[in-house]
């Protein structure tokens, strides 16, 4: 427990608390000869008690004025959740519908569907730490792993701005993996790749990605938004000559992910409903216990100080009625 004050200079007023040491705050009665009075331990005790009460009253008022509070803390909790990095495709084609057309009133674009479904996914997962990376030709770092859901929603909403250029998935993946670097190992680490296309991964980054996936202990979900009449991730080409990464990047990216020996699940969604199902599936699967630190916001103690001061003032006032005047 750490205590702190808002305005430290008020603490100088704590000096006032010594005043009751000089004077017990009671109407003195004249007495012919003090030496004649016997020493009474009970009276001395009461006098001391009154002075202590007075000192505590002044101190409580001053601490209340200084804004005494318990500073922000965190405590460890266990809940069901995960560390999830959303890796979103910002390539041009995301602004088209699942039919590969410009969105009209009836059909929303893949990006809009992704935005809507991801927002509700985030809303359903209160204990997750979420981060966001995006990629088109270059990777974009958006938000680090955070529990600030308002920020995550702001970032998901921001994908409403027009999409960018091409699909360069390997750089995006490295950025997403890097986001786990500074996180302590607790709970599952998930990369949720949402894309509508793929690109061949060059041999250099392939090796690096393999290492990183293994080292970071990642679980990978690929939500592939398939456009009508485009090659799917599970399709085999009719002509064996087309069976290469250049002609069928989606299939080869899937093979690459499957060869990583990490928990990996691919979903091929051809409509917003299929996408909803895939997201529900992930939501259900990823419920492992996660240690996380819950932040306890700073607690204002000035109210308690004032309460104490008021109580003691009432006691001291009550004592006034017992004073005897001769």
């Amino acid at each position: 427990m750490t205590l702190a004050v808002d305005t430290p200079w008020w603490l100088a007023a704590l000096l006032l608390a010594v005043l009751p040491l000089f004077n017990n705050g009671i109407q003195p009665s004249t007495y012919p000869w003090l030496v004649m009075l016997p020493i009474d331990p009970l009276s001395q005790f009461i006098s001391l008690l009154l002075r202590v009460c007075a000192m505590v009253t002044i101190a409580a008022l001053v601490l209340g004025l200084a804004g005494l509070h318990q500073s922000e803390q965190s405590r460890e909790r266990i809940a069901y959740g995960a560390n999830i990095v959303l890796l979103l495709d910002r390539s041009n084609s995301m602004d088209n519908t699942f039919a590969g057309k410009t969105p009209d009133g009836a059909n929303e674009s893949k990006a809009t569907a992704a935005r809507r479904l991801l927002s509700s996914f985030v809303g359903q997962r209160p204990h997750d730490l979420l981060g966001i990376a995006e990629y088109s030709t270059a990777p974009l770092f958006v938000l680090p792993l955070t529990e600030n859901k308002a920020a995550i929603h702001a970032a998901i909403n921001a994908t409403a701005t027009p999409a960018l250029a091409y699909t360069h998935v390997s750089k995006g993946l490295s950025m997403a993996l890097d986001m786990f670097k500074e996180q302590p190992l607790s709970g599952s680490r998930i990369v949720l790749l949402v894309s509508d296309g793929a690109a061949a991964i060059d041999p250099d980054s392939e090796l690096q990605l393999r290492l990183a996936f293994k080292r970071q202990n990642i679980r990978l979900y690929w939500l592939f938004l398939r456009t009508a009449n485009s090659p799917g991730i599970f399709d085999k080409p009719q002509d064996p000559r087309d069976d290469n990464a250049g002609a069928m990047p989606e299939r080869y990216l899937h093979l690459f992910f499957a060869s990583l020996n990490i928990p990996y699940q691919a979903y091929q969604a051809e409509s917003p409903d299929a996408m909803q199902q895939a997201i529900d599936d992930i939501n259900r699967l990823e419920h492992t216990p996660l240690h996380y630190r819950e932040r306890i916001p700073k607690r204002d103690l000035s109210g308690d100080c004032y309460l104490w001061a008021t109580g003691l003032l009432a006691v001291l006032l009550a004592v006034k009625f017992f004073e005897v005047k001769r």
Partner: protein
Amino acid sequence: MSSKPYQNYRFWLLSLALIAMLVSFSRPTQNQVRPIYNYTFIIDITRSMNAADYQLDGQVLSRLDYVKHSLRGLLAKLPCQSKIGLGLFTERRSTLLFEPIEVCQGFNDIDTALANVDWRMAWAADSRIASGLLNTLDILQNIDTHVIFITDGQEAPPVNPRYRSDFTAVKGKAKGMVIGAGGLQAVPIPKFNNKGEPDGFYRPDDVPHRSTFGESDLNPEKIVGYNARNAPFGSEAAVGGEHLSALQENYLQALSAEAGLHYQRLTNVDDLATALQISDFAEQKTTPVDVRWQAAMLALGLYVLVYVWPMALCLKSWITAGRRGIKAISKMHQTHV
């Protein structure tokens, strides 16, 4: 025999102090008007922003690094409930990374996002500042925020004055500011290789020195080697200083005037904070502020008086006694004389 306590000033002081404290439990509040701000920073991440012409603690810093440093500094200066969004500009348009987020709750997130802004995030080359600004104002139209566009104003390749962006559609609709980053002295622009390692600087023959798009705005008779189809800009090789970069302040001022935005040059964090916290951008927010301290202060004053009063009386009697003594002594003195 018990006396009446209310004949004693101590009783009255204590009672008043207690009443003041009891009043404080009704949680008195006062409405206070505070300005809060809402900005979306669009940072230019084109190559010229890598030019190093800022200094910080004796270290030479690139424009982009200095912009990041300044914005992170500014973040700590904004009042809570202010909001900050972030976007990037390259090529001829910008993208929004996140819509404005509350600064106190999202401090770490915004700070980390700012720290991670990198020129390598650029999804395309080219640096068309005017088109970028126009596009930014256009995409942020529907978001309630003030656009702060941070750039050095270096158009690359140079614009053809014949085809300038037209801001009339957005002028006056958006409030915002253009921030000019960089020094007025032209400095070389660092070059990087495929792997992102530094690789010297851009040389004159690495960059185009004039626009070769469309038609020239000059009178064809004045262009050496003019040919309407094959050489609309003439046959002479263009020479120029486009491989060097300086803050194009005049150009940016003209652009901001066209777009109806403010202009400010980035010098340091404090000036940036002052420039941004102008009434034009401020939203006055009324928040109830806790004023229990007023009651508590009154109670403290009254209660302390219980102890200070007798001391004052005591002091007074000493002083009068002293005076009397002095008078008596001087009288004695007089009678003796």
